[in-house]
């Protein structure tokens, strides 16, 4: 139908226009810069060079990437474990003010994350709330040094990224059809089997959405590791920030950014491949 073509045409064009100008162009700029030679005065020479990527082959950069993977991965896992029951319970709640509860999840995150991070610092400090409580209760005898360690960084990251796991999960679980669960029960499945073989696969897109929105930002965040971790180690985010701002080496910074993007892309692709085998959904409908 002609009206259909018009609708399809306008929507796709609109999206394309926006993303081409504000996403594609800047990305191309970054890609091009990563292949240029560094120049301390003019930021880069208009000269093709692979020196940035070659520099990245240095094993010290592998350590940076590996450490970031570890921190981001741990953070995503913890977020998933904490969020899933929460999102599930919230989504299946039969409560008049369910939307309000959803809003209440996100309102704390409208206060500046920087200030909340300082609130976390005041909790974890040597004379802070956590230590005071534990000491008074006699559970420990010396103040715990959590601050300025990787543990503090993980706590900070989990706290900041939790709603990014909860919201996609919630959006997905909310539409879960109870008929499937009832059917499984009728066929004799116990709770565990229902969960692993019916609920989990059906909510899988939500899980993937949540992981994408948590793991990827966690890899490139730098101020939480800086503030809570004492800036003693370099994560990928710090590395990029360092290259762009302190070292004024924009080509190298762009190269690291490109490598990060590529690494994430490869992971995502591998993951999709691995799951095509156990896919319950067919391909989404094409043109009807």
């Amino acid at each position: 139908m002609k009206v259909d073509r018009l609708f399809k045409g306008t929507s796709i064009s609109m999206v394309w226009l926006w993303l081409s100008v504000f996403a594609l162009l800047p990305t191309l700029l970054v890609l091009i810069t990563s292949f240029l030679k560094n120049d301390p005065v003019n930021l880069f020479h208009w000269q093709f060079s692979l020196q940035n990527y070659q520099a990245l082959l240095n094993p010290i950069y592998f350590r940076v990437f590996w450490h970031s993977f570890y921190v981001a991965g741990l953070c995503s896992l913890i977020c998933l474990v904490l969020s899933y029951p929460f999102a599930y319970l919230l989504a299946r709640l039969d409560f008049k003010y369910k939307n309000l509860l959803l809003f209440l999840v996100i309102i704390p995150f409208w206060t500046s994350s920087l200030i909340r991070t300082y609130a976390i610092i005041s909790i974890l400090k040597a004379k802070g709330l956590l230590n005071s409580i534990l000491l008074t209760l006699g559970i420990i005898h010396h103040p715990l040094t959590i601050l300025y360690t990787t543990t503090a960084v993980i706590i900070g990251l989990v706290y900041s990224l939790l709603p990014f796991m909860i919201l996609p999960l919630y959006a997905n679980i909310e539409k879960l059809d109870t008929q499937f669960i009832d059917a499984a029960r009728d066929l004799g499945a116990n709770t565990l089997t229902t969960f692993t073989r019916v609920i989990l696969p059906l909510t899988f897109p939500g899980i993937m959405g949540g992981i994408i929105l948590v793991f990827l930002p966690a890899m490139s965040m730098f101020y939480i590791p800086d503030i809570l971790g004492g800036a003693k180690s370099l994560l990928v985010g710090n590395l990029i920030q360092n290259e762009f701002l302190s070292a004024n080496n924009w080509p190298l910074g762009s190269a690291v950014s490109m490598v990060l993007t590529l690494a994430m892309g490869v992971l995502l692709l591998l993951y999709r491949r691995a799951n095509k085998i156990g896919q319950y959904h067919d391909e989404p409908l094409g043109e009807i």
Partner: protein
Amino acid sequence: MNRLARFSYLAVIYCFFYFPIVLLIIYSFNNSTYSLLWHGFTLDWYKQLGDDSDLAVVALHSLEVGVLAASFATLIGTIAATCLYRYRFFGKHLLHGLLFVLIVSPDIVMGISLLILFFLLHMRLGFWTLLLSHITFCIPFVAVTIYSRLTGLDKYIFEAARDLGATDFMSFRRIIIPMLWPAILAGWLLSFTLSLDDVIISFFVTGPDFQILPLYIYSLVRLGLKPELNALCSVMFAITLFIVIAFQLALPKKVNQ
């Protein structure tokens, strides 16, 4: 699982979210400038806040950009997710890739590349460059949230609608949007949160006449966090809480399908 266990778990997570906020509010009454320990009660910071009209303007700017960016991003993101789900078209994979790149890109890379872009386009830095950048980085978050919900929909609904004579636009408006409503809301909330808190990208793309709150806070932190900021955040928190609760309670309840 019994109700008590369920509610307890929900309560625990809510506490986890709100505890630092409560602490923040308590510290806004702290009688000390730089210490992060309790030194006594004072209302000085709220008085200072009342006198500081600049801060109010800055906070207002942030809210403006947040609401607008979230709304436009939700619009574009929803359309993008729907197109990716339903249609096959030229450059579909590239679009997918672009959305992905937007999420992965570190803020600083996006900030600087957008700044260069605005320079090449001869755009004056200020409100519009800020708004455009915010919309751009919010879009993929909306798209991912909505896409993950779309894949859970019963695809035969579209066929049924077609059979009954609906055009694509009608099925978009009458079927997809209502069915996606929780995801759209979730997407809007995510975008608003991201926009309100964004520091790095905003730093690079805003101009001299448009200062926003997160930048103000971030640059203030460099020289030591003043409790006046705690007071500001407490006030903003109280206001948003009040508005949201009032809004929810006052709305006529829709029938849940």
